[in-house]
Each structure stands twice: as C-alpha cells, then as structure tokens.
C-alpha cells in the first residue's frame, strides 16, 4: 500500500520550473531514499508534501489524505524535519517538544516516550542552543515522532554530522523503522549513506525523477565485472590478451578485472587452469550506487 503518492506535481519559482511533472509513490514500511544533487528539487518536493509550499499542478496524498484539501488529516500522520532542525534556541529541548506535543494534541507523557526513543534523557532540560548538531537532529526526530506518524520525512538529516554521528543516526532510523513500524523518507545528496540506509531509492535531478528502484537492483544490474586473483599474473595476462584483450577492465598487483558475464566465468577459469596458472579466487565486483547514479544522471554535483 502506498503511504505517499505524488501525481504530476509541478512547482515554479517565478517562471523557473523547480519540480517538473514529478510522480512517484512510497510503499508502507520502507526506508525510501530521495537522492539527488544539490538544487535537484528535493527540499522543494518535501516542502510540498508537508504543505509549506503549494504545488502549482498535480496532487500529493499522504496516508490517503490530499495535502491541500485535507491538510489537518494529512499532517496528523506525517512528521518531519525540513532543512535544518531549527527550533526555539532559547527553550529547553523539553519545552520545544512540549510545544509540538500540544500543537499535535498529544499528551505530555508522549514527550517522555520520544525523549527515551532518541536517547536524550540526560540533556533534555538544557537549552536547545547548547546542543551539538547530532543532538539537535535527535530532538528533531523526536519532534517528528511525537504525533505517532506513519510517515517520517527527513530532509538531509546527516548533513554536517561526523561519521560517528552518521552511524548513530542510521542506527536510530533502523530502530524506528523496525520497532515503530513507520515508513521513512530520507533525502540526501550523499550516495554512500543511502546505500547503507535505504531499501528503495528514488533519484531526482533537475526537478525530474530519473529512476526509482530497490538498492539491490540498482547495485546489481550494472556490474558485470569479475576479479581473477591469479599467479603468475604476467603469464595469465598474456594469455588473456591473446584471446579476449577487449574484455580487460583493470589490472592490479594481484588480480585482473574482466568484463565477463556470470556464465562466462567457468570458461575463463578452465582456460587459465589449463595454462597452469594458479587461481586464488574469483570475485564479482559490486557496483556502488555512485556509479549507478553517475550512469543515470550523467554526472552532477554529488558527494562520493
């Protein structure tokens, strides 16, 4: 079942189209990565989903409620952070969450629950301005979780976090998805973390959706390369050059990388053994999301 649906959504800033005819849907229970270079229209799309911007054309449905016509019902089942986790810096984390709980009609006991969920019990009475970025992100997530949303939307949540912070954050998301059973939509321009975090990835560039697929699918299909760890390398290389010189992708100190299909691997293997070359291992080359992304978008400003 789709928890979020966008149909032919368009948005112009003045005469400049920022989102062009965007349609996709997110299935319930998934962690959906919304990937694209800076300026691709990710934040604009998220703002439209959360009702901060009005779509010029098309419609957006959250949990079956049209964001424009049934705003209150739609917002009751979606929580999120847009851009930075901006909160009232002069208030404590607790007061910030209290505000949100009241606005969403939740009891104050729910505040304690979400504080525990994000592990901020110790510092919750401190002023928001004293928090580190990681803590701010946690409070941001807690704020979004207050209303018991079915869909959690996080806009570039790992921006500015250090590697340890990113890992913590990833664990938190996994925990929430698993234990609270909610659907998560995460936007990012950093590919690596998408690969490690998400089930499904939608790639957006220039306001258009280029592709939507499972992470496995994106990484598996493009590869078609195998590494042969062989000795002696020179003899093996000479043999291969005589027969399939055009298939060599890379040569390293201890392996030769060949563009061959899975079915061809035993044939190559046999030929090498026949020539008296020792094979220490054959390994398929896993294609990173980056390569897939670059292949799809044709480059762009992505952080690898």
């Amino acid at each position: 079942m789709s928890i979020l649906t966008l149909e032919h959504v368009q948005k112009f800033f003045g005469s400049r189209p920022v989102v062009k005819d965007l349609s996709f849907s997110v299935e319930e229970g998934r962690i959906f990565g919304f990937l694209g270079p800076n300026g691709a229209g990710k934040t604009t799309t998220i703002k439209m989903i959360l009702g901060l911007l009005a779509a010029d054309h098309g419609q957006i449905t959250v949990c079956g409620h049209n964001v424009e016509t049934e705003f209150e019902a739609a917002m009751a089942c979606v929580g999120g952070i847009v851009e930075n986790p901006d909160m009232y810096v002069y208030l404590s984390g607790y007061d910030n969450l209290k505000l949100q709980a009241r606005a969403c009609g939740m009891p104050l006991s729910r505040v304690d629950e979400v504080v525990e969920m994000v592990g901020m019990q110790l510092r919750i009475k401190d002023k928001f301005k004293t928090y580190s970025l990681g803590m701010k992100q946690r409070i941001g997530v807690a704020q979004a979780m207050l209303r018991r949303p079915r869909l959690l939307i996080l806009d570039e949540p790992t921006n500015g976090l250090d590697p340890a912070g990113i890992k913590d954050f990833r664990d938190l998301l996994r925990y929430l998805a698993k234990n609270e059973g909610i659907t998560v939509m995460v936007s990012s321009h950093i590919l690596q973390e998408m690969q490690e975090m998400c089930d499904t990835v939608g790639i957006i560039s220039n306001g258009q959706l280029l592709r939507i697929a499972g992470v496995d699918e994106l990484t598996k299909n493009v590869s078609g390369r195998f590494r042969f760890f062989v000795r002696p390398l020179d003899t093996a290389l000479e043999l291969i050059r005589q027969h399939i010189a055009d298939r060599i992708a890379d040569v390293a100190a201890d392996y030769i990388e060949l563009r061959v299909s899975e079915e061809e691997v035993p044939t190559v293997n046999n030929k090498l053994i026949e020539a008296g070359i020792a094979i220490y291992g054959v390994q398929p080359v896993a294609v990173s999301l980056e390569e897939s992304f670059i292949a799809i978008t044709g480059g762009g400003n992505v952080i690898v």
Partner: protein
Amino acid sequence: MYNLLKNERLKLYKKTSTWVTLGVTMGLTLLLVLITSAFTTMDFGFSMSYEDYCRDQVSSLSAMLQDPEYSEDEDFREYYIGMVTNYRVFQYILDNNLAEGDWRIDLADTAFRLSVEAELADPESVGPGEIERMLAEAARWTHMLAKGDWRAYAGEMIEDPPGENLEEKEVYSRIFRMYLEMDIEPVSTKWDYSYEIDLNFDNLLNPGAGKNWKASAVNAIGENELSLLRGEQAFSMSGTVYWTGTPLSDADRTALAQKNRELEVRLRQDIPPVEINSFYGLLETTSQVSLLSLAALLIAAVIIAGEFTAGTVKLLLIVPHRRARVFWAKTLAAVEFAVAAELVFLVISMVICGVTSLFAGAGAMQVTTLFGNTVTMPYMLYFLGKYLIMMLPTLAMVCAGVMFSALLRSSVSATVLSLVMMFGGDIVLRILMVLKSFFGYIPGVKFLIFANLDLSVYFSSPLTASLPSELLIYDSSMTLGFSAAVLAVYMAIFLLIAHDSFVRRDVK
C-alpha cells in the same frame, strides 16, 4: 486552538527579549514620569517673592521710561501708555502689599490706564469734554479701588459692564452676578507670576492653582460665552483675551457649550479640578508618557517574522492545524500580551503614584460629559474608563505590527517599519498641522491612522476658549467616536492583510 495559544504564550514568556523590551519601555516611562513630576513640582527659579518680582518690574520700567529715545516715536504712544500704566500698577501692588492674583490688580489696571490715557491725550485731537469724561471715569474706578470691597466692585460691574455691545455686556454682568451669588472672590489674571492662577482651566492644574479654581472657572465660563457670542476662537494669556480670527466650527460650539455645562456643575457641586501633583495628577502624567504601546508594537512585529528569521516557521506550520488557526493564535497572543502589559503597568503606576503623592486627593470626583449628558463620577472610575479607551491605539499598533510581521517575514525589517510608522506618522501629522495653518486643512487627513492615534486630545478638555481645538486635533469635526471607528477599521484591514499573507504565501 487553545493549545496553539498556550504555545504562543510559552514562546513569548520564555523569551528574554520580551522582558528586555518590556523592562526597558517601562523603565523609560517611569524615568519620564520622574522627570515630568520633578519639573512640575520644581520651582522654576521663581525663588523670588512676588514682592521682589514687582520691585524688579518697577525698576526696569522706570529705567525704560527715562529713556528719551522712545518718547519721540510716533507709533509709540500706545506702548508708552501701557508702560506707564504697568509702572503705576506695580507701584500700587507694592504700596498696598497685594498678593498675587488679588482682584484689585485688574481694577487698578483699568483705573490707571484711563487716567494715563487722559493725561497723555492731545487736547487738539480728542473731542471737547472727552478728557474730562475720561478723568471722571478714572476717578470712579480709583474710588472703587480705595474702597477695597470686591462685592461693591462686582455690583458696579453688573451695573456697568464692559463689552462692545449689549450681548457682551450681558455676559459680563452675568459673570459678576455669579461671583456675587456664589460668594467667590474674583482673581486677577493680570501679572500672575507663579502659575498659581490657571487660566486654561484644564483638567490638571498647576500646583497651588487649586485654591483659585472657582474664580478661574467663572472666568473660563465668561471667556467661552464671549467666544460663542463672537463665533470666534479666543486665546488668553496673562489676563488678556486675544481673538484668533478663526471662526468656531459647529463642533467647537458644541464643545464650548459642553465645557461650560461641566464648569457650572463643578461650581454648583463644589468639585475642584485635580492638581498635577496629586494622586490622579501623577497617574494622568504617567499614562500620558507611557511608552508601552511601543513595546507592544515591537513584540507584535516579531511574533510572526521571528519564526521566519529563526527558521522555526517550518516547525510551526507542519502541525495538524490550518494556518489560519496558527495566525489567530499568534495575533491573540500579541493582543493579550499588550493588554496584560498595560494592566500590569496600571497597577505599578498606581502603587508608585500613590506612594509618591501619599494618595493625596484619591477620593476626588470628576465632571465629564457622557453621550451628551453632564455627569459626576469618582475620578477613579473616569480614569479607568479613559485608560481602557486609550488602549485602542495600542491595539491598533499591535495589529499593524502583526501585519508588518506577516508581510515582511524578517524581524529586522518588521521592527524598523513599525518604528518608522510610529514615529514617522507623528512627524507627518505635525507637518500636516503646520501646513493646515497656511493652506487650510485637507479633507482626507482625518481618515489617516496617524491623525487618530492620540486619543488623549479628546480628554484633555482642549476647548476652553483659551486653547483652540485646532492646535490639538487635525479637524474639529473629529470626535472620540470617530477616531475609535477609524482605528477599528484600520485594525480590521491590517489583520485581513496579515491573515491573507500568512495563510496563502509559500514558505520558501
């Protein structure tokens, strides 16, 4: 909706800048009160006694009279007569040891002026027997002066009143009849020195002026009646009524008649006006200089814009409430805050003024006009009612602040524009007031918000004959009800614009 209001309260009350703004404006206001009351109770270097003052006048006048340069001048005659008269009046005050405001000073002025005029008259140019007639008249008044009986003087004035025609003479006789009937010794407004004789008979009297209030009230009634009779605005200073040449409007006529009814009720029921250093006098001063509307405006200016500046607006708007509700919660919080601040300030100033004045005159009464009826009520009730009405401009400023806040979405711009409106509007109005005296008034100006922000002009009884309304109110057809209605319309427009902008515009 109530939850959203509670949220706005929490945000407002836990913000340091809220209390800093409020504290600074309240502190500044109290400082202004201190300065004002220090000025009103301070003797302005009038440490000289009245006697010394008169002696000074005598010596400087005699020096001027001995200067031969002056006497050669053709147009100088009138001035010269005045100087000689004044010289003799001051000499008379000293010789008879008269107190300031003694009714005989006026009489002496009349008598001496006549005799000086007779002495200096050129027998060639005046008609036959004219000098003798003047001298006889002067002798009559000098005789009255020697008698020293104000009742006899009043009786004489009733029989033979001054005035240019029959109607004016009637006004003067009626005034002197009032002195007699109410047994009020007249005061002279000539050569008052310490401001203890209050001519304007405003609601707030100078310290010490209260002891002469009845005579001042009778004087004011006379002036107003003359003004009504001539259909011209009068302006009086140091015992002389000057005619401004400005015709009375219908509104002026109504106000003057109303003022006179109030004065007569005061006299009949013996209700003195409030002195400026009494409890209510200080309270009035405090509320006049209050800067709280500025604080309310500044706070309203950031109540929406601040969320945009801090980026918290995204958090604010993704809650399951329509934007309109968020808007009204914010507006309500700003209004509520302004009203609460005004009320708290009222209590604080009551305590401070009470302690400073030792609650002197706290049981005073006030005479005012409500819906055309002259009514008497405790001053406290009058003051509280007035205080509540005076909150209207503050609320209008709050609505303007909310509008700037919603339109500009930047704390700095909204604050700056609010300040420009508050102070710039006042300057624009002053310029228009000045232009009016040269080119006549422009009809649309009375509908400007700036022309209606100072409601105190409707309470300060500007329409005694001595203070023309045009000095205070842009257009004399304006009333309290008019200004209130104009402000209400502005508030509605401001909020509509703010609401529309907040609800419809994208949050980029």
